[in-house]
């Protein structure tokens, strides 16, 4: 079971020579199967780049990423992705959008239709299957994006700040929806976010990243059992963990600006 996703001394350097920018600098971590890992860090710290490298959407400049014993060299069929934007195709209905991966990967459509409809029910979009994205709210669109990521039943879900464009209330709602989904379909999840509370609320482990060049400075276990609900927000441990994470990020930030000034 151990070591489902192995990220080993991964680096990402954009450009070369004098213009070289080191976005990710020697990151290593291990994700176990069924684990939900939040990658927490300030905006533009290279955490999205790291996620994209795990999905095979960006090549690594050094180091290796291995999923289930196989080195990642390109996109894999058993990975579902979610972006900050719902990225629905505006001319397709909700159902067609959810079935888009099925169509692209040439899977039997009839077989997945049923599953797509079940997913629509589960995320509370009953009756919206034939609507177009512009008729939905931002939260509803992200629900459709979740369904689309899950429709082919991937083993891994990569989420790149999927709720950061939503308003605070919708975001809380989506976090609860994601917890629900996690109970039902246990995947291995990597979830990039810059919200400390969101990371602690959702994840089993929180990896804290620094600003560019990004490295992981802490790997914090979140002790709350599942199923979780909003009540853990008031738990003393919850706030302790959040404080600890905040201090880690702030400490690094000041350290960083001091080295800049020197």
């Amino acid at each position, binding site marked *: 079971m151990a070591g489902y996703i192995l990220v080993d001394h991964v680096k990402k350097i954009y450009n070369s020579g004098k213009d070289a920018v080191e976005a990710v600098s020697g990151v290593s971590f291990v994700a176990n199967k069924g684990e939900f890992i939040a990658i927490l860090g300030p905006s533009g710290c290279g955490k999205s780049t790291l996620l994209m490298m795990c999905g095979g*959407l960006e090549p690594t400049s050094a180091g290796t990423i291995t999923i289930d014993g196989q080195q990642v060299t*390109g996109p894999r*069929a058993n*990975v579902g992705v979610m972006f900050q*934007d719902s*990225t629905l*195709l*505006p*001319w397709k209905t909700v159902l067609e959008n959810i079935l888009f991966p099925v169509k692209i990967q040439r899977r039997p459509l009839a077989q997945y239709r049923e599953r797509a409809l079940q997913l629509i029910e589960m995320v509370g979009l009953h009756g919206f299957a034939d*609507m177009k994205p512009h008729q939905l709210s931002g939260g509803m669109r992200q629900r459709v994006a979740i369904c689309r990521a899950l429709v082919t039943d991937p083993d891994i879900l990569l989420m790149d700040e999927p709720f950061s464009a939503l308003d605070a209330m919708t975001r809380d709602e989506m976090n609860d929806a994601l917890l629900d989904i996690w109970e039902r379909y246990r995947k291995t999840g990597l979830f990039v976010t810059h919200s400390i509370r969101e990371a602690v609320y959702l994840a089993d482990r929180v990896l804290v990243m620094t600003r560019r060049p990004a490295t992981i400075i802490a790997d914090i276990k979140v002790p709350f059992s599942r199923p979780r609900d909003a009540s853990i927000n008031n738990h003393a441990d919850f706030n302790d963990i959040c404080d600890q994470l905040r201090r880690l990020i702030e400490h690094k930030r000041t350290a960083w600006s001091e080295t800049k000034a020197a």
Partner: protein
Amino acid sequence: MTSGSASQDKPIPEAAYALGLPLVLGVAVLVGWQLAVRLTGISPVIVPAPTDIVRSFGSIAGDLLHHGWATGSEALFAFILSVLFGVAAALLLGFSTLAFETFYPGLVVFQIIPKIALAPLFTFWLGIASTSRLSCAVFISFFPVTLATMTGLKRADVNALRLCQALGASRLQTFVSVQIPYALPYFFSGAKVAATMSIIGIVVGEFISANAGLGYYMLRAQSYGETAHLFAAILVLCCIGLFLYIIPVQAERWVRRWWWN
């Protein structure tokens, strides 16, 4: 407040402004034109009065119909060919990097040529037949379609492209299911330009060599000093232009309805 005064206070609906103001301006210009011609006594060979133009319609209706049909049908045909050719070129250049790198610089250099200046060459090569005028018109109007459609193909939503990449979509799948639909609005703006360009191309072709068509008719009217007929022909050209322009506008409306449900 009584109901009587309420109806008096009723604001003029916005549509009345939008339609009424340009109409009032149009009438004012015509009246001004008429008065200016009559008061200055300027020769109708130089500037005919609006009433002269209207009167000439009656006497040359048959001619206008005949020549208008020749120009209109050729312009329509040129427009259709421009769209087909323009889209085909855009799809080829948008899909194949090799084709893009080979042809695009040449195409841009080509654009620098004022293409109307090439019209005599087409006559030289293709003679007085309609092929010559069609080639001239298509040559002028296909490029806006190509350029606009290609821009659209390149402007497809970055995240949607990422999604395709993540799903392991082939180049062709991405092209057909994401890039082409995103290019549609751009294509229509290109087609609108082509609609106006194709009629220009045909008329220029007719100026140079034709034995029918409004361009030909206008040159003849000019040489006879029948300026009112010239103006009448211009009016017919406007109608043809409007008709051609409505085609892509209406097509875009249909596509948008399908797109937005």
